[in-house]
């Protein structure tokens, strides 16, 4: 149950009502005051004050002043008249209820309208601001364009002026030179009578050389050419300078080679040579040279050449134990296994070799071709013709000019087609 505040005092003038409501000890905020055109409510729980006004007021312009434990309302009447009392006299409960609800609704609507109006004005403001900035930017741009245009025009004018100057200068020079030439020719005529033949051959040669020159410059160019001729040194005696070009590990220019890959390959090679696998305990009783994978590889190659495949395999096995990063060991062991018809082992070894032969660079082309061919052969002998063909085609891609690989690939293709037709 709220506590009704009934101690209020009011007075009125023709157009306004002044209401003062004492609220001792209670803090009031604007949110506690609710006012519409016929209804005024101040609610600060548990206190409550409400008044159904005698006549409508203009609630937008009315004010409430909060301070010193008192609220002072200034309510502007809609119609200028004197009120008999602040509130409506006979207000029954239902009417009160109805009025209250109405008031609330009205307040809501007003709030909504206000919000809408605010939105609209905000939009307009934004638009206006945007237009203003656009105009500013446009002005700035134009200013710069104008500056540039002015520069351009200035420069064009200067250019034209300069051209004119050139033309004038040329004309002047021409006139001058012609005058001089005439004078010199006169002098020459006089001199010629005295000078001996040595002068003439010189002039003669220069004249024939300058025959192709035509145009108005020809006449006095001869004059200046003559002088210069005697000052120019003779043509150099012919000589050749032989040069060398900077050498590179790979013979292609930087832009042509795949440097990154080649560097990687070189690095891998270097590492592989340095790698020494563990397991030296059993090998202590071997001779020094037998611990060198390269020497073992050579031994293996020799035995392969003589046809002693098992021994070759042994040599390669030992070499691999010492250094499992040399692709050539696996490659050669694959060849041995092929001859021994250990086809699965051959496939394994060729695959390992191919793994070690990445990245693909021109340097390890040969090795890769061999690896593919050997693996392909092993697949075919196992009657896995499609895999075999894949490997042969890979080999062909690296080395398209190899005829034997081409022929073999063809054969396999026929075989595949033959078997598919049969089945």
């Amino acid at each position: 149950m709220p506590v009704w505040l009934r101690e209020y005092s009011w007075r009125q003038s023709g157009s306004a009502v002044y209401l003062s409501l004492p609220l001792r000890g209670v803090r009031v905020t604007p949110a506690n005051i609710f006012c519409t055109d016929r209804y005024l409510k101040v609610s600060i729980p548990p206190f409550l004050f409400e008044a159904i006004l005698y006549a409508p007021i203009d609630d937008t312009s009315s004010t409430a002043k909060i301070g010193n434990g008192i609220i002072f309302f200034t309510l502007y009447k809609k119609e200028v008249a004197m009120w008999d009392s602040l509130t409506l006299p006979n207000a029954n409960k239902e009417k009160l209820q109805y009025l209250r609800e109405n008031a609330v609704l009205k307040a809501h609507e007003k709030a909504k309208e206000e919000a809408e109006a605010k939105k609209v004005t905000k939009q307009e403001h934004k638009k206006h601001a945007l237009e203003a900035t656009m105009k500013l930017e446009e002005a700035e741009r134009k200013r710069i364009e104008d500056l540039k245009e002015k520069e351009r025009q200035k420069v064009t004018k200067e250019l034209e002026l300069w051209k004119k100057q050139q033309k004038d200068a040329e004309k002047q020079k021409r006139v001058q030179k012609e005058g001089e030439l005439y004078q010199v020719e006169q002098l020459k005529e006089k001199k010629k009578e005295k000078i001996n033949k040595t002068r003439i051959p010189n002039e003669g040669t220069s004249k024939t050389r300058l025959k192709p020159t035509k145009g108005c410059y020809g006449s006095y160019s001869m004059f200046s050419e003559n002088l210069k001729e005697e000052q120019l040194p003779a043509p150099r005696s012919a000589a050749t300078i032989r040069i060398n070009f900077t050498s590179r590990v790979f013979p292609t220019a930087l832009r042509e080679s795949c440097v990154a890959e080649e560097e990687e390959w070189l690095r891998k090679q270097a590492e592989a040579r340095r790698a020494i696998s563990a397991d030296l305990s059993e090998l202590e009783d071997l001779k020094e040279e037998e611990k060198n994978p390269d020497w073992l590889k050579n031994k293996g190659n020799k035995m392969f050449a003589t046809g002693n495949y098992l021994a070759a395999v042994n040599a390669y096995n030992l070499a691999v134990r010492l250094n499992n990063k040399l692709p050539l060991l696996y490659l050669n062991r694959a060849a041995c296994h092929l001859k021994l018809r250990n086809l699965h082992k051959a496939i394994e070894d060729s695959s390992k070799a191919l793994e070690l032969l990445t990245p693909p660079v021109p340097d390890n082309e040969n090795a890769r071709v061999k690896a593919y061919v050997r693996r392909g052969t092993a697949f075919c002998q196992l009657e896995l013709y499609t895999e075999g063909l894949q490997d042969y085609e890979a080999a062909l891609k690296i080395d398209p000019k190899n005829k034997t690989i081409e022929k073999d690939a063809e054969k396999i293709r026929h075989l595949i087609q033959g078997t598919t037709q049969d089945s």
Partner: protein
Amino acid sequence: MSAAGLERPQLVSHVQQALSYTLFDCKWVPRSARLLCLGSAARGTGLLQLYELRGGRLALLREIEKAKPIKCGTFGATSLQQRYLATGDFGGNLNIWNLEVPEIPVYSVKGHKEIINSIDGVGGLGIGEGAPEIVTGSRDGTVKVWDPRQKDTPVANMEPVQGESKRDCWTVTFGNAYNQEERVVCAGYDNGDIKLFDLKTMSLRWETNIKNGVCSLEFDRKDVNMNKLVATSLEGKFHVFDMRTQHPTKGFASVSEKAQKSTIWQVRHLPQNRDIFMTSGGAGSLHLWKYEYPAQRSKKDSEGAEMGVAGSVSLLQNVTLSTQPISSLDWSPDKKGLCVCGAFDQTVRVLIVTKLNKV
């Protein structure tokens, strides 16, 4: 744009002309407002067009067609009165033309077996001293120096040793021609080699390798004691070598700059100020640079030998004109700041660089 930005030199585009052929080289005709465009027509013949700058446009004065496409040309070895053009073409022929009578060349020789990539001339135009000479560099790996008074044989020939695989020579330039005897030729190759040949002693004076192919070389002045050499290469790098001090093992000091991601096709020094140069790039851009000298140009190393100190390079301005590479660039020797550039989008553009006096 700030006020400071407007104080820097501006690259203002003055005239643009679309052409109907591939443009390889463009050159100003000395002492005139005329320029020459050299290139290759669609049907595989060479084309020479002479334009004059009139008002705001280029007016075509002459068009000359030749049998083989023309790759490069120079006025460097002729006198100011004659103004003969020396050209190198796709067939390896060096020709010198009188543009008034272009039917028959004044001098012609089949100098190389393959296309002449680059040509330079020295001793003419009233610049420098000594005999006029022309140097050509070709795809066949040789660099040859010609004297227009001597027919058929070059006066100097720089070729690979017997059995050495050849590398394309992409650019050549003259330098150090400050008196009648001294002269050097610098050549750049596609594997990044730069070689400096001394023609007085007929020997290789210095060589280095800048890893990427050398697209363009230029001394800042041909007719003074070697001062600076700019070498541009693929992948957007260029090097400025200080040529005053040569160290016995380290050679010349250099500073390098990576301007852009694409190839730098050309470098050209401003004839009126040798510390300003422009580079043109594969992305159609032009960059204007200024070189600043260090406080001390040489210092002594640990053994007491003199070695050079390279300065620094700063970018003054850049502009992108085209989407295709700008393959040729030439400053006008008569008007400061006027330059022409030709790009592979078959347009020739005349630009004016402003405010060069204030730099």
